[in-house]
């Protein structure tokens, strides 16, 4: 609306806006600022402050020199591990979720409501409840302490979200399209490949962003099922915290956290808009 809202309302709206801004910008600023301050400076003044001298060295230290649990290669190898887990798990869970969501929403097979109910269970089940079963599965298929094991876990756990997202999105595809395709003689896969998939980019962007962010940031499975050089970066950061418990190294720690958060921040910067848009998008204009 173009006209000015009532002024009391306006004041309130801006109050809410400023509160939100503080809640989300301040933490980011604190970490970023600390990541370029030296440990001494932080120790002498406080954890909040403008850097006196720019200590960019924190980043090189965190990236390649720092020692985490006896290995002194910084967080570089762990970043690679995270990428090797996150990328395949994101792709697999999205692809399977798209097919599952398509089958549930557009084919209405007998029992589709039950299956969908089970899928949403995955949204609610606490991670901790799944630790023991996954321990057994990983041991039985021989993937304990491997990146492949993490890929499997994240793919299957992620299916509940990807299926939910895709199913809800595909619900907006009109049944008339399905009817027309059936009269034209197309089957399950042809309809998916030729009609449904080309309409999917908005929701695929949502699921890819969601899965990437969540798998990248996840650490419970990483800590539990991997050790040493097989750990993803989030798990390594916890080990890093333990390493620096004696001599506080807040600068380097902040730099490491920033580096580890960089992929998801980039996804936010370049994809956040599409994420929000895709959440409310319908399939057909």
């Amino acid at each position: 609306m173009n006209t000015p809202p009532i002024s009391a309302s306006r004041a309130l709206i801006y109050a809410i806006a400023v509160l939100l801004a503080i809640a989300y910008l301040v933490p980011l600023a604190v970490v970023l600022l600390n990541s370029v301050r030296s440990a001494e400076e932080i120790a002498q003044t406080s954890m909040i402050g403008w850097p006196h001298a720019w200590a960019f060295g924190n980043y090189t230290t965190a990236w390649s020199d720092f020692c985490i649990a006896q290995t002194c290669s910084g967080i570089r190898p762990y970043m690679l591990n995270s990428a090797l887990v996150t990328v395949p798990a994101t792709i697999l869970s999205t692809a399977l979720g798209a097919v599952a969501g398509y089958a549930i929403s557009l084919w209405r097979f007998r029992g589709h409501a039950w299956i969908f109910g089970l899928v949403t269970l995955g949204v609610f089940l606490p991670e901790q409840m799944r630790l023991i079963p996954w321990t057994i599965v990983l041991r039985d298929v021989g993937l304990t302490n491997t990146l492949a094991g993490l890929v499997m876990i994240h793919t299957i756990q992620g299916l509940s979200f990807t299926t939910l997202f895709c199913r809800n999105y595909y619900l907006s595809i009109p049944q008339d399209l399905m009817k027309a395709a059936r009269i034209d003689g197309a089957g399950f896969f042809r309809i998916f490949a030729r009609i449904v998939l080309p309409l999917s980019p908005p929701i695929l962007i949502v699921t890819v962003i969601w899965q990437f962010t969540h798998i990248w940031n996840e650490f419970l499975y990483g800590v539990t099922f991997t050790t040493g050089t097989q750990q993803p970066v989030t798990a390594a950061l916890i080990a890093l915290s333990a390493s620096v418990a004696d001599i506080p190294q807040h600068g380097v720690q902040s730099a490491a956290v920033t580096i580890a958060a960089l992929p998801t921040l980039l996804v936010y910067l370049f994809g956040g808009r599409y994420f929000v848009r895709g959440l409310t998008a319908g399939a057909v204009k």
Partner: protein
Amino acid sequence: MAALTIRDVHKRFGTTDVLKGVNLEIDSGEFTVIVGPSGCGKSTLLNIIAGLEKPSGGTVAIGDRVVNNVAPKDRDIAMVFQSYALYPSMTVRQNIVFGMECRNVPKPQRAEALARVAKLLQIEPLLDRKPSQLSGGQRQRVAMGRALVRDPLLFLFDEPLSNLDAKLRVEMRMEIKQLHQRIQSTMVYVTHDQIEAMTMATRIAVMHQGEVQQFADPETVYNRPANVFVARFMGAPPMNTLPARLEAVAGGVRAIVGRGEAAVALALPPAFATHAGREVIMGLRPECIAEEHRRFGEDNTGLALEAPVEMSEPTGAETIVLLRIGGERALARVSPDMRPQPGAMGRFSLDMRRVCLFDPKTEALIDSARA
């Protein structure tokens, strides 16, 4: 030869009977319009013909083959949807050939069929566009193209014009009619718009509450409606229906509308004399009530009537007048020159040749003068 035979088809959703025993036999080359208000079951019937829904009972035969257990793609039909149902991510070209692609028609044949249809519908310049780049009328045309590219036994249309604006609807109506005259295929066309039914159909099936009320050519449906529902549904403004008593008089019969002082006697054509003494519902179309001195047809000067006017609505091309005949409300369509004032008495001319009589209890047609 019957192109489509529907025998005693029932459909039940939960506890609702949507179709209660529909029978239709449609000849090859006919343009059948199934018309009725929303919820009358017409779209369900079309979906059953297409195989997109299963009937709860009865049989559907296309040509000589009962198709109850045949998949939609094997029924040799083509369908145009109300929403057009164009595949949004494909170009117009891909939309039209998709069915042939699914059926593995060789490429040269596809191109040939595409070229034929594109020319027929004059959509050549649109072939490389996406549906979202088309106007409503163009989408409708492409949807037609997707159906016409095959040469099926049966074309099915599900309210294909209802998403177009009024002017375009009139144009497309003419075009579809001309198209049918050219290709002479069997077409089944569902609509809620009685004007489309009247102007396009070779035969009209009027549906109401899951049953076919009348299945006949447009002229019969309009002039000899099977019952009061059909009479009032077909035509806008609807037919006036006035309770009346028929009375024999010297040299013929007349209808008494209203009671006591307000009662009005209207002379009926002699053919109605056989019904003298009956209570009836008399149906008279608004265009049969016109201004004084109007001549209906070549030689008929109409029956003169003076009646109180309640309201008049000038539309420019004509004036719709709400009047009272024997206390009953009736609508008249008079010349735009005439603007009778509310409360005043107006002088009208009635075309009694086109009166219909209905039974007050069953509401079925008893007789109509123009057989």
